[in-house]
């Protein structure tokens, strides 16, 4: 890696040099004749040609190099001595890499020290190769671009074409990220469904990954039924949190837009925004440390002996508070979108403000508000830290808000933060849960946006 970053620096230096040469040559030309493009464009043209292809080469080489290094190490005598079992071998290789890079002095496995020099020499060899190719490419492309500079040469359009390509590439990253999420989740989920049947995952009523058999045992039959998780997620995020957030958020929006004086509004709105900006880990800590004991004591005092200190109610309450600003601003937007004429008409008929709001504004704004609530639900069920810290781990199918339920996000964190191997059914199950979560939130968002859009068109 070290020599590759050296090559990176070298490529950048070549590009700078090419740019400077192009610039000064064009400036000399300008002393004699009139140029099509400013000298700075001639410089940028040569510099971009020198830099971009070589940088792309390096970027493509870096992941390839780690494959090549692994292959050459495995084909060496020390490499052949490694255990054939993939997980163990990868662990030793990782240790060897750490030793080779000087991040560690020794590994748990004695073989990792033996392969470390192999790794180091292979890395040096391939990095030298890749680095040299990139530097040569930079020099060649830079020289070619430099030779084209002449008074008539349209350097500016050339530069602008490169910039255009970069702009397009930047916006493509959004698509690539979406594809990356979908593909990586689907790929790992498929591997999970090879170990565990899809139908049992979707419709199973029992979730107990702790009893899952190891991945290397054929036909593992741990309990990965997702129904209790889905119920817990829905119970906390879509029921309890919304019971708190919808009335409070809606009434806040109504008060702030319809009743409050401008000075009061400008003072209160930032406070709601702060509520939205508090990190979720803070809410989680607050829910676990302050709210949960109060809820449990309250549950015990009204005679519910099963009241848990990790109750669904505590997590849902705090999540609801977190969602208030979101609902409030969505409701704010949709109320503001109702034409003023409808409001004026109602008031002119002698209705009071509250009657106008309840009988005219809210029904008219209802689709927008509903869309906002769906978006809020999608955000609530994807929320992680509050439920990780305040909700429990036991997957119960219960309607009792004082009991402990668990959610999809809690289980993803739980499954992935242990010390298990990456290929076990437990870790792969986390990706299947992630896929389910992704699809559910995607669906909710699409429906919500559709509702909001259709409603807007109605009044425009």
């Amino acid at each position, binding site marked *: 890696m070290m020599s590759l970053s050296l090559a990176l620096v070298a490529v950048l230096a070549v590009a700078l040099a090419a740019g400077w040469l192009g610039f000064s040559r064009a400036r000399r030309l300008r002393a004699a004749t009139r140029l099509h493009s400013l000298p700075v464009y001639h410089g940028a043209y040569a510099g971009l040609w020198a830099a971009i292809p070589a940088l792309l080469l390096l970027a493509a080489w870096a*992941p390839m190099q780690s494959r090549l290094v692994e292959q050459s190490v495995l084909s060496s005598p020390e490499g052949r001595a490694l255990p054939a079992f993939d997980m163990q071998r990868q662990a030793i290789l990782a240790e060897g890499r750490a030793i080779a890079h000087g991040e560690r002095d020794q590994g748990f496995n004695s073989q990792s020290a033996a392969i470390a020099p192999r790794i180091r020499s292979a890395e040096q060899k391939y990095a030298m190769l890749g680095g040299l190719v990139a530097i040569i490419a930079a020099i060649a492309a830079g020289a070619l671009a430099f030779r084209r500079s002449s008074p008539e040469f349209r350097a500016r359009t050339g530069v602008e074409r490169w910039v255009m390509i970069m702009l397009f590439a930047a*916006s*493509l990253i959004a698509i690539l990220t979406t594809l990356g999420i979908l593909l990586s989740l689907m790929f790992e989920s498929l591997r999970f469904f090879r170990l565990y049947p899809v139908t049992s995952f979707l419709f199973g009523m029992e979730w107990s990954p702790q009893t899952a058999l190891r991945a290397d045992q054929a036909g593992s039959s741990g309990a990965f039924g997702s129904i209790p998780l889905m119920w817990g997620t829905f119970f906390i995020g879509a029921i309890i949190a919304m019971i708190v957030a919808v009335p409070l958020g809606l009434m806040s929006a109504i008060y702030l837009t319809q009743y409050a004086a401008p000075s009061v509004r400008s003072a209160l709105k930032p406070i709601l925004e702060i509520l939205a*900006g508090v990190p979720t880990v803070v809410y989680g800590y607050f829910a676990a440390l302050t709210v949960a004991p109060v809820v449990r004591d309250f549950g015990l005092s009204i005679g519910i002996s099963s009241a848990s200190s990790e109750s669904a109610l505590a997590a849902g309450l705090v999540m609801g508070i977190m969602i208030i600003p979101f609902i409030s601003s969505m409701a704010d937007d949709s109320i503001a979108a109702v034409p003023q004429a409808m409001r004026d008409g109602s008031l002119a008929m002698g209705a*009071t*403000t509250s009657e106008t709001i309840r009988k005219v504004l809210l029904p008219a704004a209802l689709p927008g508000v509903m869309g906002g609530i769906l978006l809020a639900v999608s955000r609530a*069920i994807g929320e992680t830290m509050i439920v990780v810290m305040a909700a429990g781990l036991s997957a119960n199918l219960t309607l009792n808000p004082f009991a402990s339920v668990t959610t999809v996000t809690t289980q993803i964190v739980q499954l992935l933060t242990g010390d298990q191997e990456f290929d076990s059914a437990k870790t792969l199950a986390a990706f299947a849960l*992630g896929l389910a979560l*992704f699809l559910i939130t995607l669906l909710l968002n699409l429906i919500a946006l559709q509702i909001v859009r259709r409603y807007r068109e109605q009044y425009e």
Partner: protein
Amino acid sequence: MRKRLSRRYLAEHWFRGLGLAAVSVSVLFLAFLLYSMAAKGLGGFVHYEARLSIDFAKTDLFLDPEALRGPDAARLVAGTDLGGVITKAATMAYGPKASDMFSDSAVNLLADAIVEQPDILNGRVTLWLPVSSRVDIAAKDKSDDASERLVATLYRQHALKRTFNTQFLKASDSTDPSGVGVWGALKGTFFTILVTMALAFPVGVLAAVYLEEFAPRNRWTDAIEVSLNNLAAVPSIIFGLLGLAVFLNVMNLPRSAPLVGGMTLALMTMPVIVIAGRNAIKTVPPSIRDAALGIGASKMQVTFHHVLPLALPGILTGTIIGMARALGETAPLLMIGMRAFIAAPPSGIMNPATALPVQIFLWSDEVDRGFVEKTSAAIIVLLLFMLLMNGVAIYLRNRFERRW
């Protein structure tokens, strides 16, 4: 008629009152949240130190002050049993119950003192050293009887004082709550946010420029817009899964490194910056573009010489708000392994590190009572940073944003 009217007015009052109550609930909740964090956390910024005099002549410490003048001093001192020296001196001064009255970090402080002034080894020295978590809790609040009695003894001898806990700002994670600090986590957060910023800002701005100024109306553009809008609403933990599957397992990047955390958060922040950037670019009036085009600038020159500088304050505001969100984000970092116990602050973007929100999460999981105030104190630090960033964003908005 009059009766009905007054009933309607009463309903009006009630409705208005309900609205006010709803807003008040939010405000009160925020106030209560901040109050409870401050009440629990401010104690984390102060700690108690106790006086300890050590007679080095009576200890069985084999250290030659002369040998400590060389460059090897720190290593030489680290090889000795300073913990034993402290325990012995403490039991001699304050009784057998005082054997573990000093924090683990006291050893390091004593070692530093010796390296700095080797001459103290020749005689008696009196130092103020931080007390252990159990004594600290007893001094601040209530604890078990033994600790309470020890604190009373210390007070009688004027051997206990309250000071600002510099340790908390300078140290990193530790198993001993009296010696933990946020410095390592802050450094990890700094590196992570740096990577996020370096990746998300340029990409986000370029994408916003493309979509607003150049994109043709076609399927590609629609696909880009749809995926941007979706990415902005994808739960953050999904980005963590992406980082785990792609950056760690496919690209073989180091686990727990700020580089990977920063890349993951950059993917999450980029849509926010694109959306803010597009809104800012939209507000630049077309007359600016027309004027520049009219005097012969190319489309690219119009964008980069005129539109982008005018939109920059708006873009920066959006970027800072996006960064503040990334700063408080925990779940994706948990996924890519930035939750390991890391006692040494990271020195670069490839070292194992943790971030401040993750540190808060880790401390909140500790059973030791001493961690409660440290967690809340770390939350105060995090909230201060968020406040600072949002303040800068608001300042930028008010100072530079133009209304056309």
